[in-house]
Structures are given as C-alpha cells and as structure tokens.
C-alpha cells in the first residue's frame, strides 16, 4: 500500500519533470505559436470581407461577395484542421464539400446558406482572443521560466543585470523585483527555483490554451450533427450502390459462365440426338427433339437479353465503348461525341449506360426524329450525358416515356435529369451524375 503510493507519486513526479521535453509539449507549443498568426489572418479575413460586403451592399456586388466569402472561410478552417491533425493528432472530419448551384443565383443562395462556411466564420471570430491570449501566456511562461531558471549563470556572466543602490552605499547588480535585489547565492537559487516552477508548469499552460482551441475546432470546424449524418448516409448509400453493381456483375458472370454455357451444350446434345436418331425413329420423336432444341435456342437468346438488362457485358470495355455500341445499334442515325478523361465507378457507368439506352429508345419510338446526338463528357468529378434529337418535342415525365423512372434512378446517386422539350421540338435531355456514387 505504502509502496504503491510512493511509486505513484514517483510516476507523477517523473511525468511532471519530463513534461517540458516531451514531443507532445513541443507539438502543442508549435500549434499555439503557428495558430496565433493564423487566427489574426482569419479575423482580418472576416472583418475585411464582411465590411467590404456591407460597404458594397448598396451595389450589386455586396451580397455576391458575401456569398463567396462565407464558403471561402472553409479554406482557413481546412488549414486549422490540418494543423490540428499534424500537431495535435486531432483528426476532425471535414464537413461535406460546398455544393454551388449551377447558375449564378443558385450559387449565391448556396453561398449565403453554407452552414459549414458560417461555422468556419464563427470559429475565426471566436478563436481569436483565445489564440492571442494563449500565445501571450505561453511565451510568458516559457520565456520567463527559462530566463529565471538560468539566471544564476547569467548573473555570473554579468548579463541581464539591473542595478540598485546598496544599503552600504555601493551599487548592487542583480535581478530586481519589487525592490528586492536577487544577487546573493541563496537569493539566486530562489530565482532559479521560480524559473524551474515556471518551466515545469509551462507545458500545462500550453495544454490548457490548446484545449480551448481544440474544443472550438471540434465544435465548429467539423461537420455539424445533421451534416455528419448526411455524410454517413451518403457514404453508406454509395456503398450500397456499388455493392449492388458488383452483385449484378457477379450474377451476369455466373449466368454467362454457367447457365448459358449449359444451355448451348444442351442444344448441341439435342442436335446430336436428332442426328443419331435420324431415320431410325418416328417423325413424332424427331419433332419433339427439334422442338426441345428450338426451346433451348429461345432460352439462350432470352437469357442473353436478360443478361444485357442486368449488366451489359460491353460495359467491361468502358462507358465510351458501351455507348458507341448503343449508338451503332440505334435505329436512328446518332452523332456521338464522348470525352471521358476519368473513369466513373461501375455503378455510375451502369446508370449512365441505361439512361443512354432508354433515351435513345425514346428518340426512336416517340420523337419522330431522323437524327440524334449523344454527348458524354466526364470531367471535374461529374459526368454529363446529353441526348438531343430533332423530333417533335413535348417529352415530359408524364408522357409515358419512362423519363420519371430514369429521373428516379439518377436521383439515387444525387444526379439530375433535365428535360428541355418544347412542343414542336427539338428535345434535349441532360443527365448529370457524380463520377462516384
């Protein structure tokens, strides 16, 4: 019992003594020192951008400027998160990326409503006093601590000395605090001890200063509760979508390698049976065998269509090859332009492929067009499929053309389907998808 207490005191004592030289202490010190100018910069950013916006509010520029400045604060937030990750080993998940709208007005609206941006602004404002005070405290403890701790050496070397009149009329050299001159050895040791206390307590001061900022970073620079949940849902949905695509792919393989091969073999066996039996049995038996073989052939061709509906094998060669095959198969001449610099995930490729297939079928069936254009461009994290025709127009989600079903399918991965189809045409349908679910 006694021993345990002694050893725990020793451990605590050791920790206190070692604290000034641990990696954690130095990292936190670096964080406080680097954080102060960043905090200043952030505050300047907020003040300048908000004042400018206010000043320009009477013109058309004020609100747009604010709409840019708010999401812009995320950038400084990102720097802070990076600093916290590297120096504090504090990993804060970034909030969901800013999603600007497609036109200027949507962009302004999104900017003004950017919750993560507002939270970053709040952080920049709120963290400033703490950061500066923290820096001051830290410097005071460390600087004064080191100076006092090493004062006996400085005194011996004659540096950092103040002078005071001695009681005997002479001049005394030493540290003068509140009229007391520290120049004798016992007094120098007191200074030294005070320095040691300051140095030993400096790590805890730093830790406190960092703790404050750590809480602010956690609270304001991470995703808020709702958006964390959204991020999580989006992640699991992407997983589910990819998983479903992989499952379909596997089913296609199994059908292809197993069932289809067996059906072909069955057909061949029936053929052999017919040939072997020829002339030796009644016409009725032969007729049954021929019917069986024809059924096998039908089954093969139906299975091929089923497989094509599950996962078109041609997609293995990439979306551009698959859409080229679609365009080639179309009943209406198709001008095809593809520019796919970045390959989308399998699930997205499948959705884009089926959209293209359905839209081209619509063109052939409903539009009365004699030309169609298909454009596929994948860049900047999005893929855009545009199918245009010169037909009679008037296509819409209610027209029984399956457009609603397509839009629903596209929406499962946060994509959009825009229909521009005035009466008398032409029809342009644009599908916009993320590259990854």
């Amino acid at each position, binding site marked *: 019992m006694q021993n345990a207490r002694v050893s725990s005191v020793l451990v605590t004592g050791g920790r206190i003594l070692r604290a000034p030289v641990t990696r954690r202490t130095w990292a936190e010190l670096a964080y406080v020192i680097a954080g102060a100018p960043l905090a200043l910069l952030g505050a300047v950013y907020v003040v300048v951008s908000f004042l400018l916006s206010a000043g320009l509010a009477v013109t058309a520029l004020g609100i747009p400027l604010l709409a840019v400045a708010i999401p812009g604060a995320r950038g400084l937030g990102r720097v802070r998160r990076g600093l916290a990750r590297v120096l504090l080993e504090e990993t804060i998940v970034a909030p969901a990326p800013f999603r600007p709208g497609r036109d200027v007005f949507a962009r302004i609206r999104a900017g003004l409503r950017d919750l993560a941006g507002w939270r970053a602004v709040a952080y920049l404002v709120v963290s400033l006093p703490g950061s500066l005070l923290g820096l001051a405290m830290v410097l005071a403890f460390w600087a004064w601590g080191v100076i006092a701790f090493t004062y006996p050496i400085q005194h011996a070397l004659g540096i950092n000395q103040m002078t005071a009149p001695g009681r005997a009329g002479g001049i005394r050299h030493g540290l003068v605090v509140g009229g007391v001159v520290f120049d004798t050895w016992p007094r120098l040791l007191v200074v030294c001890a005070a320095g040691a206390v300051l140095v030993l307590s400096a790590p805890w001061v730093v830790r406190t200063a960092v703790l404050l900022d750590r809480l602010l970073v956690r609270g304001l620079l991470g995703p808020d509760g709702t958006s964390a949940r959204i991020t999580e849902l989006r992640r699991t949905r992407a997983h589910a979508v990819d998983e479903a695509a992989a499952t379909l792919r596997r089913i296609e393989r199994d059908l292809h390698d197993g069932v289809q091969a067996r059906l*072909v073999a069955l057909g061949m066996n029936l*053929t*052999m049976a017919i040939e072997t039996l020829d002339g030796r049995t009644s016409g009725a038996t032969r007729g049954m065998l021929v019917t069986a073989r024809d059924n096998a*052939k039908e089954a093969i061709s139906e299975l*091929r269509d089923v497989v094509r509906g599950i996962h078109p094998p041609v997609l293995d*060669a990439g979306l551009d090859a698959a859409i080229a095959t679609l365009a*080639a*198969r*179309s009943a209406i001449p198709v001008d095809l332009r593809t520019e796919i610099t970045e390959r989308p995930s399998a699930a997205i490729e499948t959705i884009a492929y089926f959209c293209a297939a359905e839209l081209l079928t619509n063109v052939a069936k409903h539009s009365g067009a004699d030309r169609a254009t298909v454009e596929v461009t994948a860049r900047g994290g999005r893929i855009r499929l545009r199918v245009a025709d010169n037909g009679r127009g008037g296509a819409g989600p209610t027209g029984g053309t399956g457009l609603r079903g397509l839009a629903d399918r596209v929406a499962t991965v946060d994509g959009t389907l825009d229909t521009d189809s005035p009466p008398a045409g032409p029809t342009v349908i644009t599908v916009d998808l993320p590259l990854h679910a």
Partner: protein
Amino acid sequence: MRLIIAEDAAILRDGLAQLLTLRGHEVAAVGDAAALRAAVGEDPPDAAIVDIRLPPTHTDEGLRASVELRRRFPGLGVLLFSQYVETRFVDQLLAEGSAGVGYLLKERVVDIDDFIDALQRVASGGTALDPEVVTQLMGAGRRTKELGALTPREREVLGLMAQGRTNAAIAKQFVVTERAVEKHIANIFTKLGLTASDTDHRRVLAVLRYLERR
C-alpha cells in the same frame, strides 16, 4: 476438315468437338491461347474455332492469338465466337481483311449445319458474320449517304453478302430467283460507285464499305 477448337468452358469445348467429330471432321481441342498457338504452330489445321475471351484475363486473348496466327499462317481460316456481339472486336478482326475470318455467336453451334457451313466458308477464304453482328453494323451503316441510297431490300441483300452468303443462298432465303439477286447486287454496286472491273472484288469492296462506314 481438320479443325482446332480453343474454348475454356469444357462443356462447350467437348460438346462441340464431339459434334464435329460426329460429322466426320478431324478435331483437336485446347483450353487457352498459349496451347492454341503451340498446336497451330506444330500442325496448322484448315480452320480454328476460337473463343474471344480465353484465360487468363478473359478479355480478348483469343482475338489477339487469332490475329497473330493469321499473320503467321495466311491460309488459316479463323472463326471467332463469343457470347455477345461486340462491334469493337469486329473492327479489330476485319482490320487486316475479311478473307478467311468469321465471327459468330456461340449459340449458333446449335444449328450445326449452318455452323459447319460457316466454318467451310472461312476455311476456304470466305467470310462468315453472325446475323446479329450484321444487324448491329446495319443500324450504324444507315448513317452514310451512300448506304442511305439503298432500298431496304438492297440493304438486306448487302447484309447477307456481309454474312458471307452466296447469291444462291440469298435467293433461297428471299424466295426469289438468282437473277433477281444479281440485279439487286448490280444496283448496290452502282449506288456505291463500284465500277465493273472485277465482280468478286467489287463484292468484297461493297461489304467492306458497308462494314467500315459507321
């Protein structure tokens, strides 16, 4: 005929070998592209039946081996077969000429007479394309102005020519006389601007124009 089959699915490979043997052909069978190269290199047969997707990657090993073998053995007929029509394979296959090549869907082996007919055409330097392949290319072919000038019946005739059918076979299919087919073909040549220098050659040219323009 002396034939070799390169197909990785044992059930298809053995069944087809059995069926062709039953029809009196001499058949060897291998399961991958390396074995195909070795076997053909040792003793070139009349024709090879090659699955486009072979181990190990199951992408286009069979196609690549076929292109290579045809360079080494120009007289070798190659009949590729696959589960689906993939037009990009047709392009690569026909890139070095359409003589002695064929491309059929696997299921065509069920109609063994047609299949052997196609094999014989390929072995003797002709062409055999699956109707499905031709349909796909046909859809694409409509784009060009020249082919657009053809009547539907003429396009059908051209499609059958592309499959490698003879005039007699085309006449039988449409239940018309061979004379009528010849007339259609003459119209096709005129509309495609192919002058009468060598009839057989024009036939190939017409088919190639039909296949290439898309």
